[in-house]
């Protein structure tokens, strides 16, 4: 779980580099609380994308959380609404993985929401503190270090393990190529368009099997 800490720090550095204020950089970590979407937002802010495009991009990037929500829904139905609200807020990629494994283990599931809460809060705290550290560092890291490249490298590290089958590989290649072609589209629409092309390519190819 501590693996999120360096990325929270990198995010903090990139957010300042993109021109966010300290409060905005820290605020995004608690309001949006989603690593990849936050990284992408800093990049869009830096290239002066319109607000509506940023909001839409955050939505698309975080749509995968609907899958986590569906997968955990049966386990939390007995909980009161306030629990559902808190747990949903804490439902990140890193919280989902240990939580679903815990629920799928044999045994009484009625009290496992405490594990969910613990995982979520641990990650939340780690993310907020590492963001704050990154913001402090951001003020002293010189441009010549090219730290902006850590964004691409982080995403390479996240994508490569997902390329286990041909349809995933096709999805990546189509999205990547479309992003190059669409790079010069107005309003930074290239990213959204390319993502949709890639999603479509993967889905269609898998459907043909």
């Amino acid at each position: 779980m501590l693996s999120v800490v360096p990325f929270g720090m990198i995010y903090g550095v990139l957010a300042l580099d993109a021109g966010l204020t300290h409060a905005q950089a820290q605020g995004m970590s608690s309001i949006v609380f989603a690593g990849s979407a936050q990284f992408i937002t800093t990049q869009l802010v830096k290239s002066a994308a319109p607000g509506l495009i940023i909001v839409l991009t955050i939505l698309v990037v975080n749509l995968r959380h609907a899958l986590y929500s569906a997968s955990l829904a049966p386990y939390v139905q007995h909980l009161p609404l306030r629990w559902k609200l808190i747990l949903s807020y804490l439902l990140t990629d890193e919280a989902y993985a240990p939580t679903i494994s815990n629920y799928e283990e044999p045994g009484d599931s009625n009290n496992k929401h405490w594990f969910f809460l613990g995982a979520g809060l641990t990650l939340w705290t780690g993310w907020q503190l590492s963001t704050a550290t990154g913001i402090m560092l951001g003020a002293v890291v010189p441009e010549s270090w090219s730290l902006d490249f850590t964004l691409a490298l982080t995403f390479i590290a996240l994508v490569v393990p997902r390329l286990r089958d041909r349809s995933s590989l096709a999805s990546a290649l189509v999205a990547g190529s479309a992003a190059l072609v669409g790079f010069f589209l107005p309003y930074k629409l290239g990213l959204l368009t390319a993502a949709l092309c890639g999603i479509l390519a993967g889905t269609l190819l898998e459907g043909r099997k």
Partner: protein
Amino acid sequence: MNLWLVLFLGGLLTFGTRLSFIFLLQKVAVPVWLRRALYYVPTAVLTAIVFPEVFLHTGTFNTSLLNPRLIAGILAVIVAWRTRNALLTVAAGMAALWILQPLL
């Protein structure tokens, strides 16, 4: 649009997505087409960010083997493939970039 408003709307939509099925449905079967499409979201989105960062960093196409970001990116793909370790991937890519940038 004010950046704070952007952050609040983005946060609200993210929260709504996370709450969606937990709030709405008892025992859900997500439609197969939707499950399939959502499976490709991270792959497509992340790659769509990576390609321009690597090939278009200077604002023009740079597929030359003398593009330090391309070499560092390829190295990162290999390290990610072999180790599945995100931190090691970032470290290897940055090390390559720092070594190559002054040379090329």
